[in-house]
């Protein structure tokens, strides 16, 4: 089966100003995104992540290179029917209510007329937006905007979901919820591509990552392979006295092993935050 997204030697130059100065946003990028996984696209601001996703979706044209999406050579309407997209910093028609927006998106995405209602309720439920669905979007908080954006991206049950910074501006509890939504989608066999600057979350959520810098790919691989340092080991020990530590070090040294550092494990601020706080009011 073909990959969900394949990008070959993609280059994008933006012309800026009247003099037509060129700005290279993506530079000879090649990527294969396999199906059925959560794929993270990382990199500093302005490295070309959003531009790459827009080219894949056919919203921006490539200067050079080829893409294919779900086996289609370009983002044809048949390919886009099987794809959901949440743009970065999403902003929706603020004069619509959340439910109206999701319904509108379902209709445009070609959901059959008799199943639109059920699809809308499912998507709102998945994004935990059922309660606020009848409020105008103009009154939503940032986190709610992201979640309604998630709902409109998945309402037509797409095979491929592309999320550009789904957790920007969302509190840790909310972004953990978005992480769970992503896993729910993956367990249904969907492919999810996401950009994020929250590395901790990417590490938890993604199966594979690619890191870009200045439009170029600098690293790509499965998260476990990329992060594991197979030549080092960590042990967590309770009730250790100085004498016990010396004995342990001596025993290890007898086998040629060497202790290089001893520290106290720390819990993450995120874990602490989640222990103390119950949830946002919007959730």
């Amino acid at each position, binding site marked *: 089966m073909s990959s969900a997204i394949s990008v070959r030697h993609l280059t994008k130059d933006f012309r800026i100003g009247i003099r037509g100065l060129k700005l290279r946003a993506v530079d000879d990028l090649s990527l294969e995104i396999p199906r059925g996984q959560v794929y993270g696209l990382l990199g500093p601001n302005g490295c070309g992540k959003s531009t790459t996703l827009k080219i894949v*979706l056919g*919203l921006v*044209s490539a200067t050079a290179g080829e893409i294919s999406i779900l086996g289609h050579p370009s983002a044809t309407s048949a390919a*886009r029917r099987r794809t959901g997209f949440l*743009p970065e910093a999403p*902003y929706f*028609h603020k004069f619509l209510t959340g439910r109206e927006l999701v319904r509108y*998106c379902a209709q*445009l995405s070609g959901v059959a007329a008799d199943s639109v209602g059920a699809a809308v309720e499912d998507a709102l439920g998945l994004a935990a937006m059922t309660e606020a669905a009848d409020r105008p979007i103009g009154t939503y908080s940032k986190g709610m905007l992201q979640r309604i954006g998630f709902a409109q991206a998945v309402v037509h049950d797409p095979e491929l979901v592309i999320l550009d910074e789904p957790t920007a501006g969302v509190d840790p509890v909310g972004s953990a919820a978005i992480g769970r939504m992503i896993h729910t989608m993956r367990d249904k066999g969907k492919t999810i591509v996401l950009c994020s600057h929250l590395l901790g979350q990417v590490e938890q959520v993604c199966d594979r990552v690619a890191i870009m810098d200045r439009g170029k790919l600098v690293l790509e691989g499965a998260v476990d392979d990329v992060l594991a340092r197979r030549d080092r080991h960590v042990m967590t020990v309770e009730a250790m006295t100085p004498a016990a530590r010396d004995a342990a070090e001596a025993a290890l040294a007898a086998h040629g092993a060497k202790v290089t550092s001893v520290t106290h494990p720390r819990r993450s601020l995120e874990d602490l935050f989640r222990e103390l706080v119950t949830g946002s009011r919007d959730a």
Partner: protein
Amino acid sequence: MPNMKASLQRTLWISRVTFLEAVRQRFFAFLLVLSAAMVLSSVSFRVFDFGHGELKFIADFGFGGMFFFGSVLAVVMTAQLFFSEMDNKTALTLLAKPLSRTEFLLGKFCGAWAVLGVFVIVLASLLGLVLWAREAELIALAEQSGKIPATFSAAGLAEFVLLQWLRLGVVTAIVLAISALARTFLFAVVVGSLAVVAGQLQWIAQDAVLKPSDSLLYEGFLWVSCRLIPNLQQFNIGDALVLGSAGVAPGAVAEVALSGLLYVTAYLCVGSLVFRRREI
């Protein structure tokens, strides 16, 4: 033809939301109230000759207001509806769906045109009411004095509404074509307004074409501008229709309507060709 049907459906949904957006904006309500007040204020006009002159004056005044405010609405609102999608990046969400750019542009057009239809119908109904009331008064006066006043024709008014609506449709299509190319709202509004003015003056170029000239370049320029810019004046057979004074040639209305539809189609084609290449 299931594809065709789905495509029409999508266009319809886009236009529905566009219509909703326009109607929920204050700008539309403001212009509607302003121009309605203008039409209604013509009740107070009293011209001395009690007859055709007065009804014509009221009608001209109403048509003028309808055209002026209608054009402002067609230019500013259409550009606004287009650029609100671009600038707020909502177009990004929509165009990532299985929706073609042509359907998107056509949806915007139909939505804006529907709003203009509401505008024209409301104003024309008010104008009809004023004309009808004044006519009744004038007939009563005429019976006393023995003069025969002009009568106004409701069917003519209906035809006129249709023509005005088409004229505003042509303006909307031009503005959309310009917006598809333009980077900013302001540029689209300025160039769109210039296009309306050019359309109003197009008959001058058309007259000039008929006169022989020795410069080929000049003739070529005139010929091109006559084809490129629609003659917006040709829709102005308003008082002939409504007051039935000067006779309207039988095919004239159909001919004008046909040319209007052709211009709408042509500008929408150009617009969607340009829009297809636009980076969102």
